[in-house]
């Protein structure tokens, strides 16, 4: 009997032997089953690759053809949408910057108010400005009176010139009607600071400086006592000194607080006197006058005579 015939007669046993042999071979060699999975995936991938390429190409072509018609409207809508978003974002950014600046200003004003306990301040918002005059939103009903001093955290702004029930007009340092008693911080040179009334230069002038007095550009000018303005607050900085051929000279002052860039001011309702002003200097202090004990011995007719 040939081997082939014997195998054919015992085919199930032969199949068993072959399958068992293969299984045992795989088990003893430790072949991971993942190789079959990987092989299947690889085979499927290789076979399917051309179909994927064709499908992708057709999809791209279809998208291109439909895009010629559809994409224009979509792009226009998207463009409109993005424009609106950009405008909205720009507005928000501008508002944010404005709020940031306002917050910074208000912080500085609050800090100024806290560091000036001798001043009773009334905050006011600038609602208009023209020719060196500021209009603020506080008036007589809020307790504002004429000749009140207006100042900011940077320094003196001006003086209240006219008061309406709900608003007031402030003559700033640029206004010719604003007169401030001033003194230079370095040389203690006294003078009067007055607005030029010119909107071109944005500077004011310090008048009545004696020719002998030493005033130089860069000197800091502050308020002096004895006026509606509390003493010692900055007015500005000397930028130029000019001699006009008279007995006095004048100095150009760059205001510390630029009235054209102010949104809020403080109106000084009440200012306690500075200790130095109250004490006075040796020269200005009043001489002690001894009251006399001598009785009045003039006749009544002489004393009451006009």
């Amino acid at each position, binding site marked *: 009997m040939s081997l082939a015939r014997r195998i054919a007669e015992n*085919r*199930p*046993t032969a*199949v*068993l032997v072959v*399958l*068992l042999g*293969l*299984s*045992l*071979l*795989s*088990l003893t060699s*430790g*072949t*991971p*089953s*993942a*190789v*079959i*999975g990987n092989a*299947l995936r690889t085979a499927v991938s290789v076979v399917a690759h051309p179909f994927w390429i064709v499908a992708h190409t057709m999809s791209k072509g279809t998208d291109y053809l439909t895009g010629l018609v559809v994409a224009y409207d979509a792009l226009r809508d998207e463009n409109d949408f993005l424009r609106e978003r950009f405008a909205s974002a720009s507005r928000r950014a501008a508002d944010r910057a404005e709020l940031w600046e306002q917050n910074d200003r208000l912080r500085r004003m609050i800090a100024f108010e806290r560091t000036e306990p001798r001043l009773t301040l009334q905050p006011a918002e600038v609602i208009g400005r023209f020719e060196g005059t500021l209009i603020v939103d506080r008036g007589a009903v809020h307790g504002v009176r004429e000749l009140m001093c207006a100042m900011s955290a940077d320094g003196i702004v001006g003086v209240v010139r006219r008061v309406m029930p709900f608003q007031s007009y402030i003559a700033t340092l640029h206004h010719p009607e604003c007169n401030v008693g001033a003194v230079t911080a370095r040389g203690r040179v006294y003078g009067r600071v007055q607005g030029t009334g010119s909107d071109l230069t944005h500077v004011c002038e310090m008048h009545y400086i004696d020719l002998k007095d030493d005033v130089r550009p860069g000197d800091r000018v502050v308020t002096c006592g004895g006026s509606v303005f509390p003493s010692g607050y900055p007015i500005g900085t000397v930028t130029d000194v000019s001699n006009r051929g008279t007995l006095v000279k004048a100095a150009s002052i760059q205001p510390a607080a630029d009235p054209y860039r102010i949104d809020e001011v403080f109106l000084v309702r009440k200012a306690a006197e500075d200790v130095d002003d109250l004490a006075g200097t040796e020269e200005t202090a009043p001489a002690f006058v001894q009251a006399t004990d001598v009785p009045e011995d003039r006749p009544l007719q002489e004393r009451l005579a006009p």
Partner: protein
Amino acid sequence: MRKNLFWLAFVVGAALVQTTWLEVVRVEGVLPDLVLVLVVYFAIAESEERAMFTGAVGGILQDVASDTTLGHHVLCNVVVAYAVGRLATRLITEHAAVKAGLVLLGSLAQGILFAGIRYVQQPEIGVLKTILTSAVPTAFYTSLVTPLVFFVLERCFRSSMTVQAGAD
């Protein structure tokens, strides 16, 4: 040829169901072995040769799905297929209880064989515990679903064979 293709598709489908959707009927961690039921069915209804090929194809898919060493399920299924095929020639297998009993025995044998091979590969896993906690419950569960699966198989393959005979 047509019957063989149908058989192959059925076995592959059963193995895929075994490794995917059959999870919904898992009870206490035990699943019925659908591939083994197919193996026993073909061993009884046809021959041990077809049963062995059923076991081989289903075993490969089970090995791939469970990421075990290739040949683990195949070997168990093939041995059970051959044994049941031989045994079925000596039994009257028309009764449902006999079929279920053959499935129970086959599943037990397959579980013991599977645990033994695993023990050879990983001696730290106790073989007795595996048999008691996995092989025995699986065998009972598989024998329970046997009537239903045999009914479906007979419906499918009898009609297939009828169509085949008509075509021939």
